[in-house]
């Protein structure tokens, strides 16, 4: 019941960020704790992003081949978390975008980000800690101005949780 058991449309996903300029990122245990994560996933903390980019982990393998053997082998190795390039509508006074801008210029602020997806009854959260590595304003005249930034999740600092 609590974990959505449906195929969800992309529109059901939203991105939230921990508030304040000097946040204390959640511990790995807290990232997988529903009560802690859901307290941060509130509308005041939502980033107005066009779409949620692919998230999770990248692929990484070591390939082995031995002379005289027909089949080689691929062994998964340390896979980096997937970097997320996010496009957001640029409102210059949006408090959350100002925090992102500050993070990007600092480069050392660890902040908890949360992706939620809901089927209307249950919600699943993917929470992770990350640093912002890029911040650009794309003011092309054909559409609204965009703030484009990249979140680089920290290795191993993530957790899944859902409504109990």
């Amino acid at each position, binding site marked *: 019941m609590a974990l959505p058991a449906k195929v969800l449309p992309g529109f059901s996903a939203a991105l939230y960020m921990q508030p304040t300029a000097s946040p204390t990122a959640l511990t790995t245990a807290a990232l997988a704790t529903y009560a802690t994560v859901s307290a941060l996933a509130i509308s005041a903390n939502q980033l107005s*992003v066009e779409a949620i980019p692919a998230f999770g982990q990248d692929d990484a393998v070591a390939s082995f081949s031995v002379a005289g053997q027909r089949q080689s082998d691929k062994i998964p190795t340390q896979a980096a978390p997937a970097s997320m390039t996010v496009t957001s509508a640029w409102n210059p006074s949006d408090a959350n975008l100002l925090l992102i801008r500050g993070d990007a210029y600092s480069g050392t602020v660890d902040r908890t980000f949360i992706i939620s997806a809901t089927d209307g009854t249950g919600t699943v959260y993917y929470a992770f800690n990350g640093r912002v590595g890029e911040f650009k304003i794309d003011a092309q005249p054909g559409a*609204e101005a965009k703030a484009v930034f990249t979140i680089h999740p920290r290795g191993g600092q993530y957790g899944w949780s859902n409504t109990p």
Partner: protein
Amino acid sequence: MATQQSTLAYTEAIQAKLTAVLDPVPVYALMNRNWATQPKFATWQLRNVHQPVYTGPVQSVKGIDRPTFQISLFAQNSLDVLNMSDTVLQQLHGFTGMYGSLYVTKTDVQWLYHSYDDKLGLHQIFLDVTIDIPT
């Protein structure tokens, strides 16, 4: 967070701006009942109102609006209607600023075609005007 503006405000703004641009030519939404007795007038209609919807359950997260309104210019005299269309082009194409109390970031005018209605006895020019409205 962005909030979509009232579409009623769009229509009031268009009426106010067109009235100011074409003054003293009367401007009407959609139709003019007194078409037979007025030698010059303009009508307009709004269409394609749409803001792109962004992801997530919060309804107010949207992009800018870029609606189009069509202006129909009518005159019994061909020179009058050509003058009116030139006035609209000169004053609105590329315009950034206030439409009444609504701020428009850019106006793009496309002169569609020139026509004549034999039954009405009116020369006509139709223009599409696309306006960018910030949220």
